[in-house]
């Protein structure tokens, strides 16, 4: 008898504990509601802002200054929470899934996936807010940014005004280039590199002629539907036909060339498992590699490597979906202050004082202004070192030593020169085929890096890869993608 009672009491305890948990959640909500009503009375609203980057010691100090400024201007104060690069995805996933109270958050195609989470309902649609509270943003941004970051016809985030098109280049270690008296004239395609690689291989046995790692993929004139997933549309294809990238003549040729280079010893033996090229770049024992450029990129690369690096294009400058979604700030669907959040983002993208304060800290403490364009970091800036690109309009930020005076003009010129890629504005919705995608991913991963780096013979492995991916359901994904593209094409009169 007493045994059943004991069980009963355990049951009761657990019910009690559960109800305590739930009531705790409930309380939280009530508190939020009351702060929401405060907005109407004209008191300052506190915005909770989650952004990416290594947490900095002086964030609260700077945000206190920022809040003073924004309170006066638009009646908001700001609380910033930084989450480190590696943790950002996971922590934001949990914070969003649990419905935490957030107002503004960083998102991109590569961190806390913008399209995916917009579809899942993490962000508030901002089309109307942009009209009412974000006119400034619409004026600064190249229209391609907002056009390209639409998900199912709606905008969910404010893209940062920065370099717009993406252009692939070959980078070269200038020292090795000059030692061998090599010229970059006529270098563009993967094949055109061969004579250079050959010379370097013969003259500099310690230097890696073409540095590639597992993230490498040769440039082919196709626009991928999903990053590193074999479905793509050819750049000049006006019929928008979805193809398997491994079945295209361009990719077949590129893979054959890579395999030839691999056999000739031009690329690292373990390229297919090499995490990154950072180590090799640091030692300077390399000749060429592939990178994505922006204006004055050669300067930036040379500065960070500590020796001169030059580059030459291997593709046209085109605006892809991933290039407009490189850095965005979105408003949480759960936010109680959506208008105020938009006011803040609007100010952040148009007001140089606020933008530079968020970026470089407090004037006189973290940085010093040299004239109206240039600034200099003070020793204290080590406590407030922020990733500039993540906050919005980079063209408002002050220049530092080494930057050319016309830096931002050149950025604007570069942006104007970019032409839209074929799929700009189209975002594939994988939810109907997520089972197949999961299976194809596994089939694909086994072949992707070995093939792309030239480690294995494409003659033998490409047919295997195609067969495996087909068995996993690639054709079904392809058909679904084609029907989505056709619908999008019809809706947009392409």
């Amino acid at each position, binding site marked *: 008898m*007493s045994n059943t*009672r004991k069980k009963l*009491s355990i049951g009761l305890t657990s019910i009690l*504990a559960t109800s305590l948990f739930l009531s705790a959640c409930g309380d939280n*909500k009530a508190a939020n509601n009351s702060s929401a009503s405060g907005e109407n009375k004209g008191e300052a609203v506190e915005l909770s802002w989650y952004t990416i980057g290594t947490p900095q010691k002086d964030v609260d100090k700077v945000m206190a200054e920022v809040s003073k400024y924004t309170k006066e201007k638009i009646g908001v104060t700001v609380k910033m929470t930084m989450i480190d690069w590696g943790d950002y995805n996971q922590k934001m996933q949990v914070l969003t899934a649990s*419905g935490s109270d957030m107002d503004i958050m960083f998102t991109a195609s590569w961190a806390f996936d913008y399209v995916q989470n917009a579809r899942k309902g993490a962000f508030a649609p901002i089309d109307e807010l942009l009209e009412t509270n974000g006119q400034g943003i619409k004026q600064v941004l190249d229209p391609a940014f907002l056009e390209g970051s639409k998900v199912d016809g709606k905008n969910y985030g404010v893209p940062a005004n920065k370099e717009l098109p993406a252009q692939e280049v070959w980078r070269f270690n200038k020292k090795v280039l000059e030692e061998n008296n090599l010229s970059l004239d006529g270098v563009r395609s993967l094949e055109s590199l061969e004579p250079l690689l050959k010379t370097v291989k013969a003259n500099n046995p310690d230097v890696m002629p073409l540095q590639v790692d597992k993230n490498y993929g040769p440039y082919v004139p196709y626009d991928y539907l999903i990053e590193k997933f074999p479905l793509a549309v050819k750049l000049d294809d006006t019929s928008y036909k979805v193809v398997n990238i491994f079945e295209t003549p361009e990719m077949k040729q590129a893979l054959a060339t890579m395999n030839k280079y691999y056999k000739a010893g031009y690329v690292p033996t373990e390229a297919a498992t090499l995490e990154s090229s950072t180590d090799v770049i640091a030692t300077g024992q390399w000749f060429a590699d592939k990178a994505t450029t922006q204006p004055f990129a050669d300067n930036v690369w040379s500065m960070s490597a500590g020796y001169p690096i030059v580059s030459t294009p291997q593709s046209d400058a085109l605006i892809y979906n991933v290039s407009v979604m490189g850095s965005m700030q979105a408003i949480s669907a759960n936010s109680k202050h959506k208008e105020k959040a938009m006011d803040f983002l609007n100010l952040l993208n148009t007001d140089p004082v606020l933008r530079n304060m968020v970026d470089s800290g407090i004037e006189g403490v973290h940085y010093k202004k040299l004239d109206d364009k240039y600034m200099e970091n003070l020793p204290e800036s080590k406590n407030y070192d922020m990733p500039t690109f993540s906050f919005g309009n980079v063209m408002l930020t002050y220049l530092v030593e080494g930057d050319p005076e016309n830096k931002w003009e050149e950025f604007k010129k570069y942006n104007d020169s970019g032409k839209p890629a074929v799929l700009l504005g189209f975002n594939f919705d994988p939810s109907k085929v997520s089972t197949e995608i*999961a299976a194809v991913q596994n*089939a694909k991963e086994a072949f992707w890096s070995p093939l792309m780096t030239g480690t294995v013979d494409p003659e033998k492995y490409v047919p295997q890869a195609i067969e495996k991916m087909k068995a996993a359901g690639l054709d079904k994904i392809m058909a679904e993608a084609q029907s989505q593209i056709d619908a999008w094409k019809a809706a947009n009169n392409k």
Partner: protein
Amino acid sequence: MKALRRHLKDVNRNRALLLMVLPATVWFICFSYLPMLGTIISFKEYRFSGNFLSSIINSKWVGFDNFKFLFRTDDAYIITRNTILYNAVFIFIGLVLAVAMAIVLSEIANKRLAKWYQTGMFLPYFLSWVIVGYFVYSFLSFDRGMVNRIATAFGADPVQWYSEPAYWPLILVLVFTWKSLGYNSVIYLAAIMGIDKSLYEAAMIDGANKWQQIRNITIPMLTPLMTILTLLAIGRIFYADFGLFYQVTRDSGTLYSVTNVIDTYVYRGLKTTGEIGMSTAAGLYQSLVGFVLVITSNYIVRKFNKDNALF
């Protein structure tokens, strides 16, 4: 009323014991029983709307769709085979080698030296798989690895370890054993220390040699612990050690036929779509199989010896 009073009296009498159980009970409720409600996500297409509870309620019910990706291709066979075979080998080695090592350690006459060995063997257990992965890489790297250096010094051809699937079952078992042996043997060593010394004295008087003592005293005394630890391990046979199969193999595509296990398959499959429902489904499937296996093996153990069973 009377019943309630008796109940309170009962609680009062056992208050010290109940108080001791309380922290663990709270822990289990918070981290094991409450999250169990979340398994419902595996039958839903999870979408955000408001807080966590309302998100679950408002998400679309999709039945068993989330489980399909696990069985979509012939990979299903490969990952199940790899997961179960590796874990079976790990359990077997964990048992035999750890017990053997524990007995050897307990028999070392120089106790100070025994402590040294014990600590040395225990140390790898604390290393993260990422670091172990780099250790292994320093041995197996193609151009700078120790193994290839030695091989070429003796005139043999260097091997591209990270693209030769044939070697990896052995490498993985070796690495796993190296990392976990110390921990497992310490558990058995503690049990050996707890065996009544008078049993050995009595055996020695009867003229039993060392080997006979081990066979007739140590091993029978360890059997209950061995059974329980093995039963617990069987419950986790469907969970692979992600770090071992992902980090140590450097996620090399050419090795997937022998290194793809359920956990890495789920990770690779879902990292692009991030469907919470599907990863929950995979987790539910793993724990369900583990649950069935524990119940069955416990049932079998009960048949032989009731005292050794878990419950």
